[in-house]
Every structure is written in structure tokens, then in C-alpha cells.
């Protein structure tokens, strides 16, 4: 049996320290909503026995700030979460403690002191794997053409109603490949605050333009994996 009170014996820090946690969210866990993920982490952080910093005031709570949103049904290798601790604990220790409380599909990959702000995230890189009945090199070429052609739009729903968004303007680059019966698309999409585009938007646009992925979801399906968060140059990984 463990006892989380050990945290009370660690030396206090002069200032609360913000640590950045990079974790994956794959497999079954792609179906967990953002709200559910928040609740999950609030408990994971506690049961990992981390020396968390609590806000002062009437209703003390721990501080958690997540990076980019990720739609339900997309997977990721680069989810980011900032947490705050008030006592000394090494990043390796924090990582090990967190992973004891998580399943592999939500494993923590890295923990480090946060330096850059999330606002520096400008693009995100996604890999799409498309399984569809008529998959062949010609279809891959057609998809490539659609993506390169420009003029793609998506409707974005918000509180103020629906609006048309120029999707092509949010695509930095794409690459399409046909391999072993599957179609792969690698795309870098806008992810900056206010310009974030959901990776699902690309699927929606392709569905409208080419008719793929409109049939029986058990025969035609796709997987979206977010690989990296990128800085404004579209190359350097955000940390």
C-alpha cells in the first residue's frame, strides 16, 4: 500500500515551479473528451503523490493548463499539460510517479521545466491513415490534387453561429502516399491560438470533394495521429 503523505516531507521551493508534461493519448483513450481528461488528470496528479501547488482562497484547487485542443476520435503523441509543484521533486521522479498511475494509452513521455509559452505553438503535424474500399494509387493522387489545389473550405460551428473557413489557408503543407492498400496523408495545419484548425476538418473536406469515407464505418475508416507541435517556422518542434 502506498501513502501519499510522503510529499509533505519534501523541501519547499522558493517559488512554485511549472513543469510541462508531454503525454500520448492513443487507442481507446482517443474517445475521451477534453473535460473527462481534465478530471482524470486532476485525480492522477493527486494519486501520484506529487507536491502540488494549490491556489489560495476560498476554494483551493490545483493548477492545470493544457496545450492544444484535440478532438474526440483523434490520437496524439504530443499532448501537453503544465502543472505546478511547490516542493522539490525531480522531473524523472514526477514522470515515474505519473506513469505508475496511467495506462500505456495515456503514458507520460517526458516531463521538463516549462520555458516557452503555449502561445508559441503555430502549427501541428498530423498523420492520417485512411482505410477505404477503393484505395489505390490513383485515389491517392486524386487526394493529393485536392489538397494541393487550394480553395478548400469548412464550416466551423461556434457560439455565434456557423461560418465558412478557408481551410487551404490553414494548411502549411501536405504529403500523400499509397502503401500496402492504405492511404497516408501527412499534413501540417495551423494550430496557433485563434487560428487552430481541427484535424477532422481535413477529413470533412476530403469526404465532400472525393466521396471517400462516406460508407459503412466498419469497412471505411481512418485514424488521425498528431505527431508534433511546431513553432512558426513550421519545422522546429515546440517544447
Amino acid at each position, binding site marked *: 500500500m502506498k501513502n501519499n503523505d510522503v510529499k509533505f516531507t519534501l523541501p519547499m521551493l522558493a517559488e512554485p515551479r511549472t513543469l510541462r508534461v508531454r503525454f500520448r493519448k492513443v487507442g481507446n483513450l482517443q474517445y475521451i473528451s477534453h473535460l473527462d481528461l481534465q478530471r482524470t488528470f486532476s485525480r492522477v496528479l493527486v*494519486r501520484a503523490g506529487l507536491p502540488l501547488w494549490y491556489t489560495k482562497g476560498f476554494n483551493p484547487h490545483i493548477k492545470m493548463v493544457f496545450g492544444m485542443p484535440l478532438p474526440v476520435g483523434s490520437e496524439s503523441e504530443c499532448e501537453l499539460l503544465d502543472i505546478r509543484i511547490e516542493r522539490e521533486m525531480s522531473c524523472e521522479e514526477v514522470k515515474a510517479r505519473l506513469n505508475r498511475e496511467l495506462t500505456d494509452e495515456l503514458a507520460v513521455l517526458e516531463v521538463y521545466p516549462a520555458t516557452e509559452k503555449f502561445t508559441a505553438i503555430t502549427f501541428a503535424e498530423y498523420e492520417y491513415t485512411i482505410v477505404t474500399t477503393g484505395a489505390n494509387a490513383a485515389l491517392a493522387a486524386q487526394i493529393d490534387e485536392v489538397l494541393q489545389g487550394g480553395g478548400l473550405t469548412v464550416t466551423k460551428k461556434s457560439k455565434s453561429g456557423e461560418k465558412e473557413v478557408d481551410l487551404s489557408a490553414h494548411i502549411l503543407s501536405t504529403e500523400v502516399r499509397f502503401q500496402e492498400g492504405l492511404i497516408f496523408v501527412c499534413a501540417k495545419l495551423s494550430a496557433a491560438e485563434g487560428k487552430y484548425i481541427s484535424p477532422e476538418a481535413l477529413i470533412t473536406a476530403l469526404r465532400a470533394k472525393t466521396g471517400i469515407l462516406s460508407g459503412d*464505418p*466498419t469497412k471505411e*475508416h481512418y485514424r488521425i495521429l498528431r505527431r508534433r507541435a511546431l513553432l512558426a517556422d513550421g519545422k522546429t518542434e515546440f517544447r
Partner: protein
Amino acid sequence: MNEKISSILKTVEKPGRYSGGEYGAVIKDKKAIKARFAFCFPDTYEIGMSNLGMRILYGSLNSDPDIWCERVFAPWVDMQEKMRSYDVPLWAHESGDPVAEFDIVGFTLQYEMCYTTVLRVLELSRIPLLAAERGEEDPIIIGGGPCAYNPEPIADFFDCFSIGEGEDNLVEFTKLYIRMKEEGRYTRAAFLHEAAATIKGIYVPSLYDVTYHEDGTVAAITPKFEDVPKQVQKCIIEDMDRAFFPENVVMPYVEAVHDRIMLEVYRGCIRGCRFCQAGMIYRPVREKSHEVLNKQARCLYDNTGYEEISLTSLSISDYTELEPLTRELLEWTDPNMVSLSLPSLRVDSFSRELMERIASVRTSSLTFAPEAGTQRLRDVINKNVREEDLMRAVNVAFSGGKTNVKLYFMNGLPTETAEDIEGIATLAKNVVHEFYQNKERPKGRSPQVTISVSCFIPKPFTPFQWEAQDTMEMLREKQEYLGEKVTDRKVRYTHHDARVSHIEAVLARGNRRLGAALLLAAKEGFCFDAWDEFFDYDKWLSVFERSGIDPAFFANRQMGLDEVLPWDVIDCGVSKEFFKRERERAYAAATTPNCREKCSGCGANRLGGARTCCPGGGARNEK
């Protein structure tokens, strides 16, 4: 999770209910185990995951290395539709394997209105609905939980029932299954017979003949074999300190209805409210010691990270070690920012200082259940609450800054008169009055008193088991009458749907003949009847009519004291004589002291028990 299911998940609402992969979910190597148990909660994931009993039994079955127990929930209607379109049978949560491939499928039956969902789950699993139509390759279907105390209405669909507390008995049942398979002696019939004959609390309906009188009442329920018990006695865990305790908890990602630590403090109830089935079937009272509880709570906190601990039991104030337990808990919950809540805490039983440190006390409302509007009727139902108690409680609450009071009542109780109904409105008005009399009340605020009124349902194994339920017309009339009597604008009045209560009464007191109606209901697509949006009263009436069932025969008929009751085949520990005595006292408006004041000889002490107040039981503080 196989790819087919995973791809459907992108097309349904709240896919997180189906995806699994929770921390704490038990995954075992299929080759290393000997029996697979599918434990089904016949409602949504969010509701099922809030059920403490399911968590306990899941843990207890999985603590045996030979058994792998998985969870099954009822998929929501959008998912059911996809499963039909894409030809996907219902799967178990952990492995994603079809439920039909399991050895044993268990259903926990928490409320009667889940019966149609049970049948839907069987159908989606492609398991024959009728026990008589299942073959050697089909799983054994077992039911348990409070509704299993009258298993007769659903007897046609179950191979067997486990009556009482299943922590140990389900493991034993599964072990027998494994043993018979290993020894090559297994056939469905042989296994069920041996289980009925050798394992306590196992009831196999097919091993009993039920005969009826011409008027439709039961003539006799007779075992077909000598070695099958005439009456099946429920199982209990005698010593709650030694009861299986699930240290490792499955942590749902999707928010469960009760998403917190639920600490079971004791089983049973010392009060004997005459309408309350839970207060009777869980007898005798058996407490856990505060030392054990504190350890268990700490362990659960360390293993879950929940920010709230809720002490659960039928009436938490009756726990004899409540003060020491609360003190010990607060010692570590406070520094860890964990809040402690004690639902249904009676304010008079607790020191003010401790009260103020307990979270539930800090919320803005107080709930109280007088159940009836006059002292006379409260005496009839043996609800030992006086108006002074209520007023004292609301005053403490008002002084503490609360303004909302919620009061629970019941319409249609035996002997109820217009005066009793009016008494509900009066009581609510008096609470409002009390607010304005209280000098320490929150300044500048006005009180809100809500009265929530349900309908009396006569339940098996209560002193009121023989009573007739009011007809729908009467219940509605009473509800309207009360509506007219509530004139105070600070009083809000809500009531249950009498139509649901009526069907519930039919299912609660039914016999095996109801099976035909339930089968027809299943064929006509009934499901989720516990959900208002799916409950359709007229369809129920039509189904009853076409299966030759008169609902009034089960709900609105005064049953004879000498009549063989459908549930007489079950022994819940409390004797029929006690229920009869209590019924008489009810009609004389005489109260019965609680079990701690004086034993009233209900018979439940026959079952044993440690840390109980029953005569002959282990001493209360024996450790």
C-alpha cells in the same frame, strides 16, 4: 477493442462510455484462466459505474486467479442501432469479446424498471431470452441484487439467482462451474442442480413447480428434487471487517453519476420503516469498525485521487462509531484537501464542531425525509421522526446559513386520509415559518422549501407487502389535492409519475405469469424503462392485456395473509410472522422501537453477524 467496434465509436454520442481502457480495469491472460464471468449492469455506463455493489463483486471475482470478470453495460440507443446495422454483437468492456462467449453472465438487478433492459442486453448479446431455450454452449445467466428477492416475474429468463450478498457466494458458484467442467461432469442441468443443492443462496427457478389456484393466486411452489431447498435462504457476510474490500478501483474517464469514494460503513438498518424493503432485506445490521474504515478510506484515496469521500449506509447517523471515524478521517482529509460528505446525516446526532467540518453540511441545502404529513401516519409507517425533530434540524441549517430545504414524502401509504395529505402542505409551510422566526437566518434571503412526493409501492419482504397500491386515479387525485393545498409561494411541489409507480408495483409483486408479458415487451422493443423518455404507460397496458395479465391483480389487490406469496420461496432472514406483527401494529398506529433500543424478534439474528446489536450476534465492538 477490435477495429470494427473502434470504427463505430467515431459515429456515436459519448464514445468514452464504450472505449474502456480505464486505469484499474482488470486484464487477464485468457489462457491462464478457467472461467470468464461477464458482470452486467443493465443501464448506462455512467449509472453502472456508480454502483458500489458492482465494484465489490468485480473485485471479489477477479481476486480469484482462475476467474476473469469483465463488465458489461447497456449501450445507448444510438449505439444499439449501429450494432444492428453493422452486425456487431454486444461485447464485454475489458476484452471486447462477445458476451455470448462467456461462461457465466451475471446481472445486478437494482430496480424493477431495468427488466426490459436486461432482456435487450441478452438480445444484443445473441443469447436466447428464455432459460428453457438455452443450449449447452450458451452462458449461464444469473441474477442478483435487491430485485432478486422476488425473482418470479423474471424467472423465465434466468438460469438462477444469487440471493443476498454475493461477495463469497459468486466465487463459490463459479468455482463449482470450473470444477464440474474439469471433471467432465458439466451439463447445464447437472451444474444448476448441484449449485442449488450445495451453495447457499442459489435459487434455480426451473427446479421448482409452481401451481396456481383458479383465482390466479399461487397454490404452491414445490422443489422437483429432494436435495433442492424448499426455501432459499439469503447469504450474508457475517463479519464486515473481513468482507472483501476492493482496494483497486476502476477509474472511469466518463463522469459517473457518483464519482467519488463511497465508503460502506455498515450493512442493514436498525430502523424498521414499514414500507422500506432495504431496511428489511439487509438485516441484520453489521458494522465495520472505525479503525478498518479509516484504513480502507485512506487506501482508496491513495489509489484513486478522488477529492471527495462519501460515507454510505442507509442511515449514517446510526453508526455507533461515527464520531471517532469522522475525527480520524478529518486528520488526513483536511491537509489533503479532500472533502468528506455524510448524506442523510441527522443533525441532532452530531457535535456542532464536527458538523462544521463536514462538506455536505456546507452545501446550501438540507434534505429530510418525514415520508408522511401527520404524526399519526408517521407512526403507522414507523418513521420515528417527529415534527420537533424536523424543526430542530431546519433551525440548525438556517442558523448555519442554509436557505434550501428538501422534504421527501410518499402518497398512497396504507390508511392515508385527506388530513395526512394536507399535513404535507402544512409541514412545508411550518418550515417556511420557522425560517422567518430564526434570528440567525441568512439576512436578506428567502427560504425555498421543496416537497418531493413519490407514490407508495408495496414491496415484497416488508410489513406492507400485502397492501393494495392505490389505483392510478386515486394517486392522481391525491397528487392534485396536495397541489391545491400548497399555497405558500416559498414551497415548491414536485411528484413522481404515478404511472411508473404502478408498473413498478406490478413487477415488484408479480409471479411467473408475468414472464409472458415481459417477453412480449422485449419483442416489441421495450428498453430503458427506467428513463422517462422511453417509458410508455399505454404500451405497458397493451402488453399486459395481450398476455392475459391484469395489472391490478398484482398492484391494487390486497393480498391474503394466508396466501402463498410468489416470493415465499425466498427466505430473507426476517420472518413472515414478524411482518404480520408489524402490519398489525401499523394498523394500530403503534411504533416499534429500533433494533438498538430493543430487539423485536424479526428473526434475522438466525443468520449470525459480528458487530451487530442482534441478540446472540457477535458483540458490537468485538474486534
